[in-house]
């Protein structure tokens, strides 16, 4: 069966990482759909598998010993695992662009900002050197970087953390992609620069029908940008739904706990609320509900066997929790 609707679809994807030479499952049966003009948020604690999932979309994990063990990723119906190297190369940064979580993983310290940005533009848009530089300067001003002209001649080392992050955002926009996968794109940016970036991305979403997948731990950003939210825990999607539902009626105890930890809703001087314990590493997931060891509501049933997804609201809201299924 072949889907042809315009969409970036992750279908039942499982990934294994290599730990001490052995494959260990790190992402389990993840399904996500990103449509043009929509913003999908992916949230969850550190180490849940968000970046592994995001990077799989460009098949980037393969260079770090990450292997697909199940499932598929379809770009407008075409499997990215069936693409030739040449098609894949043109897709990366072309139709689908990525903003990396850590800018220095994506910037080469020995080339200037101008040559790195210019290369992306020339490769995908085929512009002349001069036109590419003009476009590059425009992109840098767009993300709020002053003095774009002289920035083009700088090496990444001479930029502050937030400046590098903005260069990466500019680079992702360079070739007018259909989809952007942005992994924690604003962690180094203060609120007012963040607002500028938000406005810029919204403009692209509206005018160019950009589809955006936003990996973030910042609920302010989720509130500003996302149409839909997926919550990840220990390699699985444990809840997904429209953004308003997730804020107003989070169903999974994990989502509820995450929402309760936001520092803006606690008082200075007091200890900040936490979810006790930590995310189990790949290979150390409990059987049954993976969140059970940290969940106040977990009973024997939760620990007995893997928990299936339960969907309601015509399938728009779903959660992986026995209690949610019972109470519905």
């Amino acid at each position, binding site marked *: 069966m072949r889907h042809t609707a315009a969409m970036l679809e992750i279908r039942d994807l499982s990934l294994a990482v290599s730990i001490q030479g052995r494959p260990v499952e790190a992402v389990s049966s993840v399904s996500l759909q990103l449509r043009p003009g929509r913003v999908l948020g992916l949230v969850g604690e550190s180490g849940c598998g968000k*970046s592994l999932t995001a990077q799989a979309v460009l098949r980037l994990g393969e260079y770090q010993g990450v292997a697909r063990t199940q499932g598929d990723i379809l770009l407008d119906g075409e499997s990215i695992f069936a693409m030739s190297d040449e098609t894949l190369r043109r897709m990366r940064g072309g139709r689908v662009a990525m903003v990396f*979580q*850590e800018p220095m993983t994506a910037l080469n310290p020995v080339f200037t900002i101008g040559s790195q940005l210019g290369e992306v533009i020339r490769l995908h848009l085929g512009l002349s050197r001069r036109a590419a530089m003009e476009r590059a300067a425009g992109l840098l001003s767009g993300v709020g970087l002053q003095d774009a002209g002289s920035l083009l*001649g700088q090496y990444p080392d001479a930029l502050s953390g937030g400046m590098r992050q903005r260069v990466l955002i500019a680079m992702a926009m360079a070739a007018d992609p259909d989809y952007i996968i942005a992994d924690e794109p604003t*962690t180094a*940016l203060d609120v007012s620069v963040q607002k500028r970036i938000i406005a810029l991305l919204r403009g692209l979403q509206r005018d160019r029908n950009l589809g955006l997948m936003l990996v973030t731990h910042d609920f302010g950003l989720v509130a*500003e940008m996302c149409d839909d939210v997926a919550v990840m825990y220990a390699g699985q999607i444990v809840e997904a739904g429209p953004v308003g539902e997730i*804020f107003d009626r989070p169903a999974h105890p994990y989502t509820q706990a995450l929402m309760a930890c936001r520092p803006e809703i606690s008082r200075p001087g007091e200890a*900040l609320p936490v979810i006790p314990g930590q995310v189990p590493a790949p290979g150390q997931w409990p059987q049954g509900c993976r969140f059970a060891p940290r969940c106040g509501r977990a009973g024997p049933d939760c620990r007995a066997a893997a928990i299936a997804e339960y969907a309601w609201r015509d399938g728009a809201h779903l959660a992986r929790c026995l209690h949610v299924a019972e109470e519905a």
Partner: protein
Amino acid sequence: MSRETVLSVRNLDKVFRAGGLFRAAADTRAVADVSFDLHAGETLAIVGESGSGKSTTARLAMRLLDPSSGRVFWKGEDVTGLNARALRPKRSHIQMVFQDPFASLNPRMKIWHTVAEGLRVHRPELSRAARRDRVAETLRLCGLDESAMDRYPHQFSGGQRQRIGIARALIVEPQVLVLDEPVSALDVSVQAQILNLLKDIQQQRGLSYLFISHDLSVVRHVADRISVMFGGHVVEQGRAADVFSAPRHPYTEALLEARPIAHPAARMDSRPPKGADEGLARSGCSFRPRCVYARDACTGFDNRLRDDVVACLYPLPAEPSARD
């Protein structure tokens, strides 16, 4: 209050020369006339927008970068003129968590070696087994289990790498910790765990933190005092409670007013606040082009702190009630 001053900097200046291709470009005065004292057991936060000179200030205070002028004191000792070799034994006093964890970890070194590096230098008497124990314990405190020890940096998530950087700094039990955006990559829960951990250690050991962050909801939680940087200058400093309740500098006021929204219903066609990041003036008050209160006299302002509190000719009133 006569607490010991564990770190102080005086009139620090750092000018980066424009190099290479673009000779015509202007030099960058990344840090301009910055002074502060950090006392035993307290947290001084440095806040300010991207590019305002926070990380450069941190690196100057750590003596990882030579100042163009000004002086750096560790525990009262002037360390400005010391070379790397002379500084090395003193570094157990002051450690740093870097803003970019990926760039600050050696990709070819197993995590346990990276974290144990400081121990080898500052605690040479410890056996290998004792070092491994200490590494395991410190990693656990930072929310990482033992299996992390024998893996390489690329095998971790971004937030895990950030916590490895914190473990590496904590393990030598410094008196001063310079933390450059230490929790920016962490989700709310793990962030809270780390902030609570830092607070506990501070209470147990009287540690001092120079805490750099652009996230005011975090700063509000950790800071005793705040220095606000803008365009390389400290434009306001004071007790955290005072700065939050009654900012004196128009920039601080703008910073505090720019809040993230808490619910999708608050979404508007949010354009950046007028003049939010529109650059700075090269002469006179550097905040002038964006300041809603700017007057003619501001073109002649020298950007210096007045009474060690605020660098503004027309500061906002100190009493919040005297507003509007």
